[in-house]
């Protein structure tokens, strides 16, 4: 590109056509919106006929076939009416839209599967009973819910201050120093640490103090901290950088010390954003299974002491109900889906709460 710009102007290049055919949308015909809808409906009908001919069933198969028929059809029609370039453009538009709808399919399917199968045991007994002494039907996940809340609670209490202070360091103290740059880089890298590795780290750390083979709630919390802190740091840093510098300078001009400026001006201004970030971080770690599997273990009874003995957690409860079911198997699978439904509800609620916080408590920008 730059070479063509620096060529001497007296010897102009022969104009190279930017697009390799000459069909412009102005001269040639266009497919109208109504015709386009017709092509979509026609493809759906054709796809349905095709599938019945081959006796394949299922909404996903229908959708994919419809998309394929549509892409071929719209290319043919547009090629004839609008020219090759616009036909390609329509195919890509169709393809991109199809991809997006394909991405929605898993989300819809997950929610549908979990809700439809989880409701069978989503009852009072499920939330009030543990599995102690329960062999077949009945029983519940009270112990697992309590375990999840306790372990996630401890993780949050420990991670949030560390994460926020680290973010304060990055934004207010670090400047562009070497430590700040290293921290920014490695916090990003840490968001990608496999959760099972975090679990192994926590086990190894506690082996140093307590010897091998120990399972405790607090070990799980430490594992989850490794996963949660980077997320808190990133989101908080983002929010602190959004706080206008004029606010800090106004505060300094009034003679307020730096630490009071941070705690009375900067943090309150960013509070809504930080709360959103923290809520999303909780949602991310509350469903973690692998690190809890190796650090906290599993148990059938209620244990609310994170400093002694194994605890049950919702994701681990779901996993073991599937992996090592008893008799009758149905009862275990039903409890599994109920606990997955509970987990999904918690995660989705946290996500919605996070969005609501950022929507309603965001500071007024005055514009």
């Amino acid at each position, binding site marked *: 590109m730059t070479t063509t710009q620096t060529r001497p102007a007296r010897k102009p290049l022969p104009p190279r056509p930017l697009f390799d055919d000459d069909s412009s*949308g102005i001269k040639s015909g266009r497919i109208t919106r109504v015709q386009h809808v017709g092509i979509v409906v026609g493809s759906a009908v054709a796809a349905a006929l095709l599938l019945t001919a081959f006796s*394949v069933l299922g909404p996903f198969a229908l959708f994919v076939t419809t998309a394929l028929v549509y892409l071929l059809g719209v290319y043919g029609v547009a090629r004839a009416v609008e020219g090759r370039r616009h036909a*390609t*453009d329509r195919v*890509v*538009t169709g*393809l*991109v*839209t199809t*991809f*997006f709808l394909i*991405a929605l399919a898993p*989300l819809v399917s*997950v929610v549908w599967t979990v809700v439809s199968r989880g409701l069978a045991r989503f009852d009072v007994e499920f939330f009030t009973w543990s599995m102690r002494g329960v062999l077949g039907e009945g029983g519940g996940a009270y112990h697992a819910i309590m375990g999840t809340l306790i372990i996630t609670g401890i993780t949050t209490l420990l991670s949030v201050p560390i*994460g926020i*202070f*680290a973010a304060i*360091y*990055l934004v207010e103290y670090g*400047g562009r120093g070497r*430590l700040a740059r290293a*921290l920014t*880089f490695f916090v*990003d*890298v*840490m*968001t*990608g*640490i*496999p*959760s*099972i*590795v*975090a679990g*192994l780290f926590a086990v*190894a750390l506690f082996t*140093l103090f307590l010897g091998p*083979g120990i399972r405790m709630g607090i070990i799980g919390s430490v594992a989850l901290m490794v996963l949660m*802190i*980077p997320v808190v*740091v990133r989101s908080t840093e*983002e929010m602190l*950088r959004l706080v206008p510098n004029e606010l800090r*300078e106004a505060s300094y001009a009034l003679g307020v*010390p*730096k*630490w009071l400026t*941070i705690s009375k001006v900067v943090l309150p201004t960013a509070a809504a954003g930080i709360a959103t970030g923290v809520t999303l971080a909780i949602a991310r770690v509350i469903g*973690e*299974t*692998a690190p809890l599997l*190796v650090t906290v*273990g599993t148990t059938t009874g209620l244990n609310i002491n994170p400093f002694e003995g194994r605890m049950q957690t919702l994701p681990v409860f*779901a996993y073991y109900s*599937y*992996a090592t079911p008893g008799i009758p198997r149905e009862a275990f699978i039903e409890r599994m889906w109920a606990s997955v439904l509970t*987990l*999904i509800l918690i995660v*989705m609620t946290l*996500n919605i709460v996070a969005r609501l916080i950022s929507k309603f408590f965001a500071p007024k920008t005055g514009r």
Partner: protein
Amino acid sequence: MSTTAQTPAQTSSKPVRRPGDRIFAGLSTASGILILTTLVGVAGFLLWQAWPAITADPSEVRGGQGLLYYIGPLVYGTLVAAVIALLIAFPLSIGIALFISHYAPRRLAQALGYIVDLLAAVPSVVFGLWGVSVIGPMMLGIQAWSVDNLAFLPFIGGPASPKSMLVTGTVLAIMILPIMTAVNREVFLQTPRLHEEASLALGATRWEMIQQAVIPFGRSGVISGAMLGLGRALGETMAVAIILSISARYTPIITSPANPGTIAADIALQFPEAPTGPPLATLVASGLVLFCVTLIVNMTARWIVSRRAEFSGAN
């Protein structure tokens, strides 16, 4: 930005240091250092715990034939699953990101992005249980068809299974889709508006504009997004542990029930019952390998991102 915030303190001849200031600065610096120490600590503690397996006699290690014999197939299985996931998720994530950034109506775009992000909120154990009860049976038909008709391909072979490597890779692809889409979306949105408008003004269709302005601008971002996705796929544990049927060492076939395991899934499946000593240390050693691989992948991805723009997948 933050340098201007410090100017008042720097310009005054002798800044007043209050105890509160010192405590606050100390606390923040300590938090920063603690995080960096943790990362070093992860590597250090894993190495310490894995050491018995590295130094032990090959017969004492899990599998009884040495560390490489045990970890080799797991590394292979991890790579196969991650590569399948990446091959599926890569085109999808670009398409979805383009849809959100350049095709969807402006007013809807943010909400659509949020819906894709919701996919990232679903816990991995849920994806695993969903995959084994919905995706596996759903893909059985097409796999059986492939075994019947495409058996000449080296990676297809029977009997078709709902717990095959292909099913696992597909579920992993769904799981890494949100992070890849988020990165791609962000870099596509950063395309200079003038480049796009210049292209459109010359009569380009939307797709030609994307080819000329958006893709060249976003290429490095797309690559780093793919690497972040790869890192996630390599380390994903529960979905693989639940779905994949493990009973082989090295095999190119991805449609049968005989598959090599992956490192993360193997740890999750074996660790709770592993006897202490070299067998347990073997698992930690494989975890160390996984940590190093994902660290390198993630660092490369972050390095590419940090070179080009102020963006990270965590925001």
